[in-house]
């Protein structure tokens, strides 16, 4: 402090001068025992609550047959297949396939695509026809088309060209890729011709309404595709999902003009239900019937990325970050007190006498409180994913896999969320000069705004999304770790871990709030007498 006073007395605001200011603020922070203890508590709460959330009981599950549950609920370890990118995927469909060697192509004409769905609240009927209560209706993302895959093992790399129930022709590949082709639905009067051409690792999809005029839909490269691949028509249909209810569906498609150049016409086709025995039981076994070169194929399931929500099994691993809320309240108190305690004790006058450049004082305070909080946040958040995932696994729970990069983003993002919120609280404390008011304001804008949108869930979805877009609570989006895919029918709400803004965009909204509050605080600090 003495050094700072001497330097500032000489007047100029050099970089070195600012370093001394930061050091002075750091000294103030570390010498108040209560503040250091509070930071330790913030880190401990972040980690402790997160691990507590992960230490839930084992998920039981019941073996299911097409006629309903069989046997008592038993401990089991349900899991999703893993796609080529390391992400969790759904991979169940009915596949009529044969081996395709080297560079070749497959062409089909789809002449109809219809579907049936289970009744609300009920799945399968007992007896010989489990689907007897189903009603007709096609899912928008029911898929019928042609597929080239490295193998029939779940999670294999693939490319597919398909007609869908409500989204026109699509070319999809490796679970996450999706490119649109011809719009419209399939009927006998308006069939869809589909062609996939292989050249080395490159697969190109073409579609046509008449079999004469072809348009390229997309080209994808599947690295390391074996010389012999499995190719043929496939059909699948995802569960229908509403926020409160869901059920199984099937799709029935008719194919003709099925040809692979060089392969014998109409022979050598094998039908298989891929993934129909999965414990997830989100698909039904399919079947196929061939007559005079016309294939009628029934399939159920989905070939798509999987994420938390009613469409899939599994725990969102980011539940573990609920601990950040406990930590958040502590750092908001800390951030506000870092300035209001100076007003309360009259220390602010000494501080401003020593460093008359008031904007720099505030900047130094923001750096210190933000930096300290970030470090505490990293210490608190880092153990949550590895230890929490281990705890969940040890209880037989499935956790969606995530890449190391996502894991780093979650830990650093949670720490940054705490740090920027502490800076926002510092700015609010400077503006209001009243700790209780500043703390309540920031808690209301972050924790309470989140509370209104997610756990309370009284607001209609639109209003809740709006709150999570414009309030600092948008920053919680940084904790989303599975993206929402438009080509997957799921309930994309914050309750299931999907935020209305992208992770960094949401975090940006929080940063804008902090920056605006700091600007206002600087102006007021300069204008007002301390």
């Amino acid at each position, binding site marked *: 402090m003495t050094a700072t006073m001497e330097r500032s007395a000489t007047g100029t605001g050099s970089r070195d001068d600012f370093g001394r200011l930061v050091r002075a603020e750091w000294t103030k922070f570390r010498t108040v025992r209560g503040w250091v203890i509070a930071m330790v508590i913030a880190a401990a709460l972040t980690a402790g*609550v997160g691990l*507590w*959330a*992960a*230490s*839930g*009981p084992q998920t039981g599950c019941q073996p299911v047959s097409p006629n309903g549950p069989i046997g008592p609920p038993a401990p089991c370890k349900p899991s999703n297949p893993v796609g080529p990118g390391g992400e969790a995927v759904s991979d169940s469909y009915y596949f009529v396939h044969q081996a395709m060697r080297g560079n070749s192509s497959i062409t089909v004409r789809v002449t109809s695509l219809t579907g049936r769905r289970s009744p609300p609240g009920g799945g399968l009927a007992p007896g010989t026809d489990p689907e007897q209560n189903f009603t007709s209706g096609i899912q928008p993302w029911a898929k019928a088309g042609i597929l080239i895959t490295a193998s029939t093992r779940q999670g294999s790399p693939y490319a597919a060209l398909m007609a869908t129930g409500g989204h026109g022709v699509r070319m999809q590949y490796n679970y996450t890729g999706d490119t649109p082709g011809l719009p419209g639905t399939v009927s006998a009067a308006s069939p869809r011709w589909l062609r996939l051409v292989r050249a080395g690792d490159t697969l190109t999809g073409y579609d046509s309404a008449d079999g004469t005029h072809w348009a390229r839909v997309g080209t994808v490269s599947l690295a390391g595709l074996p010389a012999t691949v499995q190719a043929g028509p496939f059909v699948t249909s995802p569960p229908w999902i509403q926020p409160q209810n869901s059920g199984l569906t099937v799709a029935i498609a008719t194919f003709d003009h099925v040809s692979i150049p060089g392969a014998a016409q109409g022979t050598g086709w094998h039908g298989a239900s891929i993934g129909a025995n999965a414990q997830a039981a989100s698909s039904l076994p399919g079947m196929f019937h061939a007559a005079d070169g016309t294939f009628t194929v029934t399939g159920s399931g989905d070939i798509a990325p999987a994420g938390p929500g009613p469409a899939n099994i599994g725990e969102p691993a980011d*539940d*573990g970050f*609920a601990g950040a*809320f*406990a930590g958040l*309240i*502590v750092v*908001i*108190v800390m951030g*506000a*007190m870092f300035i*209001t*305690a100076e007003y*309360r004790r009259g220390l602010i006058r000494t501080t401003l006498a020593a460093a008359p450049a008031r904007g720099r004082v505030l900047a130094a305070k923001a750096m210190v409180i933000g930096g300290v909080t970030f470090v505490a946040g990293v210490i608190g958040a880092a153990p949550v994913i590895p230890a929490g995932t281990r705890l969940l696994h040890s209880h037989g729970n499935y956790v969606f896999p995530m890449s190391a990069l996502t894991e780093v983003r979650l830990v650093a993002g949670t720490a940054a969320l705490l740090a920027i919120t502490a800076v926002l609280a510092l700015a609010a404390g400077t503006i209001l000069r*009243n*700790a*209780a*008011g500043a*703390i*309540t304001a920031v*808690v*209301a804008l972050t*924790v*309470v705004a989140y*509370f*209104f949108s*997610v*756990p*309370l869930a*009284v*607001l*209609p979805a*639109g*209003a809740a999304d709006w709150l999570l877009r414009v309030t600092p609570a948008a920053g919680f989006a940084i904790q989303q770790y599975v993206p929402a895919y438009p080509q997957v029918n799921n309930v994309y709400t914050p309750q299931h871990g999907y935020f209305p803004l992208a992770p960094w965009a949401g975090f940006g909204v929080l940063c804008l709030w902090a920056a605006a509050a700091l600007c206002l605080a600087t102006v007021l600090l300069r204008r007002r007498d301390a």
Partner: protein
Amino acid sequence: MSAALHAEWTKLRTLPGTGWLLLGVVAATVIISATVSASMGCSSAAACHADVTKLSLTGTYLGQAVVAIVAVLAVGGEYATGMIRTTLAATPRRTTLLAAKAGVVTAVTLVAGTLAVLGSLLAGRLILPGHGYTPANGYPVLSLANGTVLRAGAGTVLYLALIALLSLGIAAVVRDAAVAIGAVLGLLYLFPILTQVAGSPGVARHLQQIGPMTAGLEIQASTGLRSLPIGPWAGLGVLAAWAAAALLAGALVLRLRDA
């Protein structure tokens, strides 16, 4: 005691912030309640299952935070300025002092809470029928003549008063407005967030039963009373127990510690 009450009333009344904060309690509660009422929609009797009494009082979730500020500042403000030493010199009986503070804070909270609840219910009464919540769809117009609505409304006023007492007790224990408000808000809002991530439904239910806000606000429930984690009055009793414990701890440390 009446002198102590008079002194506390003078202190609270003459602070310029008190009036604004009490106005804030009413405004926060009514604005949020009215917004939630206006965002609801019900097209037919089968399509909507809403507890309109509870929803029209949603603003309580925010209003209580402002009530907590009023109560916390009544104690924390005196410690911040050193006024507490003058106060204790004038009123050496420390339990009497805390009782007097509790009395005036409860009184102003009851007044602000009553206005907030009446405003919220009036907003619900005016707004909800226009959004499909009509007697034809099975939703009678909100009225205090209805016993359940009266219980929810009067209970919410009591709820806010108990939140004030809880905050006052915590502030007396920690003697710092900033730490006290952090502790109160943490205690209120963390329980529902923990409930959401609790591993098992049983643990979640227990958390809802012991949380001061989750249990206390069951007083607003008007439908599905059988499936509540805790009954309306029992829930308010849980909050009362929290408030009593906080006040008791506050009275104890106030007597035992130097100011």
